[in-house]
């Protein structure tokens, strides 16, 4: 079973050359084909994930979840999709037509672009560019731009407020997220995604970054929740405050695009978490059977996805000021201190095990101190006091 998954691609390439194409043309077709496969797989996957998350949320909240269409409600998302297809495609009067239509496309585009650098197994990766991690961040910022465009183009004040929140939340949380993603980069000394995975292959899973830098993982998880607009950070579409945020005016297929982008984004964030912290495709016997890597990778990603879904189903939503101060006053200082400590530890020139232990120690210390300071701060702030629950009456 020692099959390199590349073999399939090469065989296809050879086949194309055999039917009389030049190498360049064959490559082009290769690329298009590969991209299409990825896209289709992930759209289907997203549809499955929607079902999965709804079912899970139902279980968590003591409901049944979708259970009418198909076995276990499995066909429900497809039914929903069909419904969205048939709905009227509205462009509100006064909206900026081009921008309005461009926004959902850009949203999906930016997330699909991120798939290009995700390593599903050894060598099964769209392109292993040497700036992989920064590439991911770049397309995260393009994604926030698309939401801003949607918010502005709708010509609706709730949408605009949603747009403002997009900028505030996504841009703020990008900072701790970038640093949390750069921590494994520091340790591995490369920004290539595959290089990051390979660096975690030592000592049968003990080399996974989640064991070495748990605090970084937790910070990444938190910021990923915010970047993925998921509860408890789903302020962009907080129904009780701004109805549905930036996508209030969208209907039909364009709404479906946003919905799809949302789920695929979660999937990408899980995949990145897997790559950076959970050892990617590393696992037992993967060196003998490379194809197993895909299985491991998908398994770990699904576990991450379950965690995301679980959090979404259980946590209540934060207030916007709480969310912003949590980012700037807790996450950013914490991740900066971590970054500094890790950099110093790596420069000490110690053996690997000692470096890992020191990084682990610094992570735990930073995490504990941050929690302790947070507790102290909460005691003093009004969040913890009873005044939070008594409405403030404006003075006359």
């Amino acid at each position, binding site marked *: 079973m020692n099959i390199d998954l590349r073999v399939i691609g090469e065989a296809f390439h050879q086949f194309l050359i055999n039917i009389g194409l030049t190498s360049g043309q064959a490559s082009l077709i290769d690329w298009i084909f590969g991209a299409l496969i990825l896209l289709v797989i992930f759209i289907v996957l997203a549809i499955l994930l929607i079902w999965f998350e709804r079912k899970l949320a139902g279980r968590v909240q003591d409901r049944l979840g979708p259970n009418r269409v198909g076995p276990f409600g499995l066909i429900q998302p497809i039914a929903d999709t069909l419904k969205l297809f048939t709905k009227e495609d509205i462009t509100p009067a006064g909206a900026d037509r081009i921008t309005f239509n461009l926004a959902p496309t850009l949203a999906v585009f930016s997330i699909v672009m991120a798939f290009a650098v995700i390593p599903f197994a050894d060598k099964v990766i769209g392109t292993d560019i040497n700036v992989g991690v920064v590439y991911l961040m*770049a397309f995260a*910022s393009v994604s926030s731009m698309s939401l801003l465009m949607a918010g502005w183009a709708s010509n609706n004040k709730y949408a605009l407020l949603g747009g403002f929140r997009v900028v505030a939340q996504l841009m703020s949380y990008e900072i701790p997220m970038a640093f949390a993603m750069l921590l494994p980069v520091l340790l591995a000394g490369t920004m290539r995604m595959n290089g990051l995975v390979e660096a975690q292959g030592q000592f049968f899973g003990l080399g996974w970054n989640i064991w070495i830098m748990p605090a970084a993982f937790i910070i990444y998880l938190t910021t990923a929740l915010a970047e993925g607009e998921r509860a408890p950070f789903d302020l962009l579409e907080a129904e009780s405050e701004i109805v549905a945020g930036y996508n209030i005016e969208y209907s039909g297929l364009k709404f479906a695009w946003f919905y799809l982008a949302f789920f695929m984004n979660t999937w990408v964030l899980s995949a990145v978490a897997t790559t950076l912290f959970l050892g990617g495709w590393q696992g037992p016997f993967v060196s003998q059977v490379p194809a197993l890597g895909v299985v491991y990778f998908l398994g770990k990603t699904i576990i991450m996805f379950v965690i995301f879904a679980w959090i979404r189903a259980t946590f209540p939503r934060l207030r916007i000021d709480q969310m912003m101060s949590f980012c700037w006053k807790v996450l950013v200082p914490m991740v900066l201190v971590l970054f500094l400590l890790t950099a110093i530890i790596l420069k000490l020139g110690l053996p690997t095990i000692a470096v890992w232990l020191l990084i682990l120690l610094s992570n735990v210390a930073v995490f504990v101190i941050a929690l302790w300071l947070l507790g102290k701060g909460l005691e003093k702030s009004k969040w913890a006091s009873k005044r939070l629950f008594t409405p403030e009456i404006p003075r006359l």
Partner: protein
Amino acid sequence: MALQILFLIVAILTLGSAIGTVIARNLFHAALFLIGTFAGVAFFYVLLQAEFLAVSQVVVYIGAIATLIIFAIMLTRSVMGREAGALNQWAGIVAVASALIIAALIWLFTIVKFDVNPQPVPDDAIAQIGKGFVSTYVIPFEVVSILLLVALIGAIMLARERHQ
């Protein structure tokens, strides 16, 4: 050859959206054109094998500067406001002068011969950038860091609402 055609197409798109940026009546559209230009420029960075710069370009220009500009537009104009007149009274003269500047620069680039070095880019180019920042260019690097900090604080102080 195919890539050269691609170069030309993207160059036309980039310059087109640059022109869009400077003449669009609606400021928001101008900002979107600006983003298009930035993306085009990032493409040329990729062609120049400066991948790190290309990605930084996207992160910094599209992710930060363009967002900031759109933010400023939203704060200083009503949501869908149309500009009365986007260009000022000297636009005609300026257009001619700018065209002349472009012509002069192109003329300059044609007469000057640069000794092109056909070496490939080293594999560790990105590592070299990182090392450069902490060795040869450490003081400029620190200065830029301080500049950014000062700009951050200054921007906050300038834009802060002053309550009585």
